[in-house]
């Protein structure tokens, strides 16, 4: 059972365009939703995270949009740059619990110059 579903699997965007990656979750107990960014040969690193008490969080060119009723959240990368080319993972967990993050399967983003 896949608790966090991520799409698309891969994405090609022109420089300056908007990259959009979507995730859906099943467990309504989840209350913490981070996005991790992974460059080749490196481990994933936290990019941005949101809690369900807000519908949007923005940090620079990166924005998370959250729809609690639909159990969906998405990452938007504005003015995408070639340096943004990486694999992006959404994840979910319960803040008050001990334990692990449940990750999506990842989206490989390529930004063409």
């Amino acid at each position, binding site marked *: 059972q896949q608790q966090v579903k991520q799409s698309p*699997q891969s994405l090609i965007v022109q420089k300056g365009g908007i990259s959009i990656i979507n995730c859906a979750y099943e467990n309504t107990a989840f209350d913490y939703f*981070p996005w991790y960014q992974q460059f080749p040969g490196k481990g994933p690193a936290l990019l941005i995270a949101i809690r369900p008490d807000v519908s949007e969080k923005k940090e620079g060119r990166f924005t998370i949009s959250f729809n609690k009723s639909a159990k969906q959240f998405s990452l938007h990368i504005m003015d995408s740059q070639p340096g943004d080319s990486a694999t992006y993972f959404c994840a979910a967990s319960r803040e008050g*619990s001990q334990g692990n993050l449940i990750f999506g399967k990842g989206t490989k983003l390529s930004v063409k110059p």
Partner: protein
Amino acid sequence: GAGVSQSPSNKVTEKGKDVELRCDPISGHTALYWYRQSLGQGLEFLIYFQGNSAPDKSGLPSDRFSAERTGGSVSTLTIQRTQQEDSAVYLCASSLRSSGANVLTFGAGSRLTVL
């Protein structure tokens, strides 16, 4: 150390051999996690430690997999009688605590290839 250190970075072994993968977490981080990353499969949770105990080892795929942590620091993931399907990148992460909202800091991973 400044980050999470994993060794070896690459390991090629023959089917049936045992392998040990090591993780050195960030000093002071009490929680330590092992994940497996296979091509197209995302990050698969294996086990996590709070101190030296493992409250959740539900992700270990079989009894050929085991892990331990000593001194609240270094952890070793052992795979016995390796199979080709064990080939993957094994990632270790640590965090200050094991609360679900904590930031996980990942190492660069150990790439295991079983021939």
